[in-house]
């Protein structure tokens, strides 16, 4: 058996239609609309979330009997990739991941919150407690009465979320999920973050004094957290892949219109060949995300799926980091300005790198999977 393992990619007509639809939906919004909202409380147009709800996208990966779409979570890949293309920072990703986490931890116990999320309530997961992605034991706690304590960091869409799923340690020192109704969280528990990427929103959050609406415990929690991290890595990879492709387009547009020393600058190999390198990396990222999408399903992610998700993340966010960096450079003086879209990509790159672990983090996790088998 080759160390390359499973190399399947399948993509059926239904998925192709979804990709096409999502692409058109996002293109109709466009980067300019996002740029206009960078310094607004909400980084996407007012009616966008309602449209997404009407399209049923928050139900992706959720069972029909809970209001879900009935299609697999892999369908989130083309949707999130398309959103990445226009840097559309809606809460769809955090909502989908919150729902997956609860569903996988304990479907029965989580029914009501999953149904709410499937119906368009905004959700998020509060897992990290420091800058270190690797902390798997949580210092945040829940007691037998659902009373919470501790603090969480980097909670995506924390202010917009109606349901916050916090990963905590319970009174038996086991991991548990505390489902928090945001309507009962005092504003002072949140601290909105100033992010390098203005297309995103996040908070640090104190759990002190809060009470969980519901606490999900049991053997499924740990496995669900693992799947959550892997699916999170995959969806961020899809986002980064889309963004990197757009970033490349913006570079190509500039290189085919800007002249210097009387030549289109795109004719210089010093710009041309690195652009090809970006393309090749985008193509690799795209292969990885759709390969991972082929392997993830409703069941607990197996080893091949884990390898696929980690490779996708390891490749895609490095790709965007490289693309964003070169985009600024290749736009010359223009690239150094706020008004050039290159800044959006280079900033988004820093955000996506930091979500669910950077490339090195995932390669370190891949090493035993690939080399010690």
């Amino acid at each position, binding site marked *: 058996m080759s*160390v*390359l393992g499973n190399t399947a*990619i399948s993509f059926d007509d239904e998925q192709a239609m979804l990709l096409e639809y999502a692409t058109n939906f996002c293109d109709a919004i466009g980067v300019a609309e996002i740029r206009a909202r960078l310094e607004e409380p909400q980084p996407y147009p007012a009616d966008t979330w309602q449209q997404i709800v009407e399209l049923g996208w928050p139900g992706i990966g959720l069972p029909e009997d809970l209001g879900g779409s009935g299609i697999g979570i892999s369908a989130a890949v083309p949707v999130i990739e398309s959103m990445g293309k226009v840097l559309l920072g809606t809460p769809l990703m955090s909502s989908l991941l919150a729902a997956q986490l609860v569903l996988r931890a304990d479907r029965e116990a989580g029914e009501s919150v999953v149904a709410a999320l499937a119906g368009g309530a905004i959700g998020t997961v509060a897992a990290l407690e420091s800058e270190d992605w690797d902390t798997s034991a949580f210092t945040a706690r829940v007691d037998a009465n659902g009373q919470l304590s501790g603090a969480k960091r980097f909670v995506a869409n924390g202010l917009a979320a109606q349901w916050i799923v916090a990963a905590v340690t319970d009174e038996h020192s086991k991991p548990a999920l505390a489902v928090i109704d945001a309507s009962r969280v005092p504003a002072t528990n949140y601290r909105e973050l100033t992010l390098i990427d203005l297309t995103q929103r996040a908070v640090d959050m104190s759990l002190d004094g809060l009470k969980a609406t519901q606490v999900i415990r049991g053997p499924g929690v740990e496995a669900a957290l693992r799947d959550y991290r892997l699916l999170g890595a995959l969806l961020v990879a899809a986002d980064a892949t889309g963004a990197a492709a757009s970033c490349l387009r913006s570079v190509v547009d500039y290189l085919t219109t800007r002249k210097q020393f009387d030549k289109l600058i*795109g004719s210089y190999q010093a710009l041309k060949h690195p*652009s090809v390198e970006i*393309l090749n990396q985008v193509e690799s990222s795209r292969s990885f995300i759709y390969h991972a999408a082929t392997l993830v399903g409703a069941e607990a992610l197996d080893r091949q799926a884990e390898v696929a998700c980690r490779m996708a993340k390891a490749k895609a966010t490095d790709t965007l980091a490289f693309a964003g960096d070169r985009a600024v450079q290749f736009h010359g003086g223009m690239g150094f300005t706020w008004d050039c879209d290159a800044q959006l990509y280079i900033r988004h790159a820093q955000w996506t790198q930091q979500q669910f672990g950077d490339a090195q983090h995932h390669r370190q996790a891949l090493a035993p999977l690939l080399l010690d088998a």
Partner: protein
Amino acid sequence: MNAIVKELEEFRTEVVSWLQANKPADPGFLLPQSFMEVGSDEQLDFLREWQHKVWNAGYLGMAWPREYGGQGVDPLYQSIVDQEMRRQAVPICFNVIGLGWAGPLINDIGTEEEKARYLKGILSAEDIWCQGFSEPDHGSDLGNARTRAERDGEDYRINGTKIWTTLGNYAKYMILLARTNPEAQRKYDGLSFFLAPMDVDGVDTQPIRKLTGEYGFTETFFTDARIPADCLMGAEGEGWKIAMKTLQYERGAEAGAAGGLAFVRIVIDDLLKELSTVTRAGQPLTQDPLMRDQLVQLIMEEKAISLGDKRAAIPALTNDFPFALPLSHKLRWTEYTRRMRQFAINAQGGDGALYVGDERARGGGFWQRAYLNSFSATIGGGTSQIQANIVAEHVLGLPK
């Protein structure tokens, strides 16, 4: 399972058995990993015998007509054979210019007489073919070929020099690109395409020693060499078009090639196997964190290329940058290969300084030779620098 699928499955089983039963024993010298690496008579004799055996068993040129040495069956059968030959790691079918360039071309556009004259000898390995496209002063610039072919009665008179003629010193025929009309307005229109015999007066080959220390190419000199006028393929001036046409057969049996394993792919699994016995700082090399990270990166790179080959077949996932995957494939694979082999030498520690011929060299010096040989792919068929231009211009639409 339907009948056709079942039949193909059975065929595959039969092929595997045959290959396992007939795979030659290690001859005691390093075998070429591609047809460009045949550097000695013993290698040639060995490979000729092997190809003949494969053909005799009915496993080569299966989709070519029976009357010319083929089996006349669906190319799918040949594809199965080719897959299994790679999987079973048997030696290559070395007559590649015949099997994959000249043969399919003759099958496509040749006359009945040409088919009868050439095809069977290609399959049986009796007639070795070579290619005469590149010239010393215009390596990457095929359209500028200067070798002249002048019509003179019943012959063409050829003058000029070709280079990188693989198997040039063994070949009976050459597919030759030569200039019949130096005055043509577009330089491409002055070129013509010939199936030229090598055993005529005025053709001399000079072996070229490669940086590996081995042979495998010749420089081929034409000095008033006369070849019969009916060696011309198509019409005068169609040389460029026909040369471009030959490139399409690269895609294998289903595109018209005779099939056969053309080269040994060296993959990351081979490297992992080699390194499993190397120690570094007293520990297995594969436990070193920095080595592990580099190996993970190589695995990812190779996997990305494999996945890309799969994705290339899915239109909905390739319309973003159309043709990016096929047009970049050579660049990506050959550059990956070069770096992987370079890494393989380094990772061996002290053993990396040994070479083919040293009894303690790992794998007989396989990786060292493979690294040096890797440049034939990053230079030949358009250097990596030119490949990058092609991708930039044809996929991204960047200006020349």
